[in-house]
């Protein structure tokens, strides 16, 4: 299986969970950074480009849905996968309507998570390629004038 090198951010208030999942993703040669609340996630995004965010819905302070809205407003190309508890599937549906790529039930199966992660990365990459092509076309047209 080919790998797309991308940067992934993991956002969850449960530190042990973030740490363990980061270790697993790193073991699969992923480039992972962690944030422990919504605000921290947005702050990091201002400085560091990220391709896919795995975002917990239930967090104290700014919750996952609010964080998602802000991400999509400021960085619409970033793909977001939501992590939800069994009791909050409704918020997953809301999140998808707000532009989240997909969602996972906690505790998430790692195989399922990597699959969805790869799909998200692929979509991000294809989108970027389309944008680059479009930009190239513009440049080409400008150079002809």
């Amino acid at each position, binding site marked *: 299986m080919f790998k797309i090198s991308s940067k992934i951010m993991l956002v969850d208030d449960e530190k*042990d969970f973030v740490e363990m999942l980061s270790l697993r993703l790193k073991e699969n040669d992923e480039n992972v950074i962690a944030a422990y609340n919504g605000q921290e996630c947005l702050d990091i995004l201002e400085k560091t480009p990220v391709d896919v965010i795995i975002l917990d819905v239930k967090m104290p302070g700014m919750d996952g849905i609010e964080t998602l809205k802000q991400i999509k407003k400021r960085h619409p190309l970033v793909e977001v996968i939501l992590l939800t508890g069994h*009791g909050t599937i409704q918020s997953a549906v809301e999140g998808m309507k707000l532009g989240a790529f997909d969602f996972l039930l906690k505790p998430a199966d790692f195989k399922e998570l990597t699959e969805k992660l790869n799909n998200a990365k692929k979509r991000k990459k294809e989108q970027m390629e389309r944008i680059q092509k479009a930009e190239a076309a513009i440049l080409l047209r400008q150079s002809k004038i």
Partner: protein
Amino acid sequence: MDQPDVNEEINILLVDDENDFRQILAKRLKRRGIEVREADRGEKALRMLEEVPVDIVIMDIKMPGMDGIECLKRIKKKHELTEVIMLTGHADIHGGVEGIKSGAFDYLSKPVELEHLVRKIKQAFHKIQRILAEKKEVAFKEQIKQQMVVAERLVALGTMASGVAHEINNPLAVIQDSAGWLQQILEKPEMQSMPRRDDFNKGLERINKAVKRAGKITQQLLQAVKTQTTEMADPSTFVEVSLHKISEEAITLVEPEAALKNISIKLETQEPYPSAWTDPLQLLQVLLNLLSNSIQATDDGGEVIVSLSTSLEEAKIIVQDTGCGISKENISRIFEPFFTTKEADQGTGMGLYVSWGIITGLGGLISVESEVNKGTTFTITLPVKK
């Protein structure tokens, strides 16, 4: 008192040793559409009542052998609901009063005026109907009260259990990913020659299995609590569900399990086929749970019957088995979360709790009746389309 016409059939036993009198009176009563059987002795009357109970006994006080008063006492002792009208000899007020004291409905003195007797019969019959209606109401109120008590306890237990489940889910995720991380490391090429690598894998595999099991329990718990509270007011998933079709579907799904024990599952229903206003997937889940329980509780060659019925107000699904039954101590706890009589790894004790949560959430009722070694009957009542 003004008596409405009695349309229902009234069954009477006429007891008198004077054959002519008895036969003529019986004939005249039959002409009025009243079902009459006859006995010439108190002893015979008691035997006949054992075989076929009647609504009202009309009985002479003075009889050879067991007299009317003695027979009356025995009838009232054994057949509480049966009313007795005593017939006394001319001017024998004393006997009539003694009869009433011993539980007779009233007395008439011979010679009997037919109109008078028919009126008394109707009065006695109305009394029986009134008592039956009262008993039914008392039983109904008692049932509602019991269900409320059970519901309150289950809601309280559910609230606590769902809190626990939510809190358990996070550490479970950590455990799962910790074990998974180690497994990933063990897969690396440089780890292939690690000493006792198989033992590590074995241990990690067990951790994964246990986490999956615990995760399933917390999910069931959260689902049960959720269905009985938040989704109660969400009728958008409700459709008109043919109970016949959904029962057939459920039976088809559990048939392989039943076939292993040679258990037959019957579906009893009548046209027009009943339907309910409900969520088909959730109802199917409950039916599967009840059927699977019944199959597990029933010995080889037993029988499980699903019967359906409907009225203007509600639809009913009854799942009945000929299984081992549920003891008195257990039956009051059967819908509680984690309550099980199965071996630790055979059941989580969540099935009926989830079913209860679903049915309550669907605006219905679920109840159970059981007799040890005879079998168990679950009754689901659901709303119908108005």
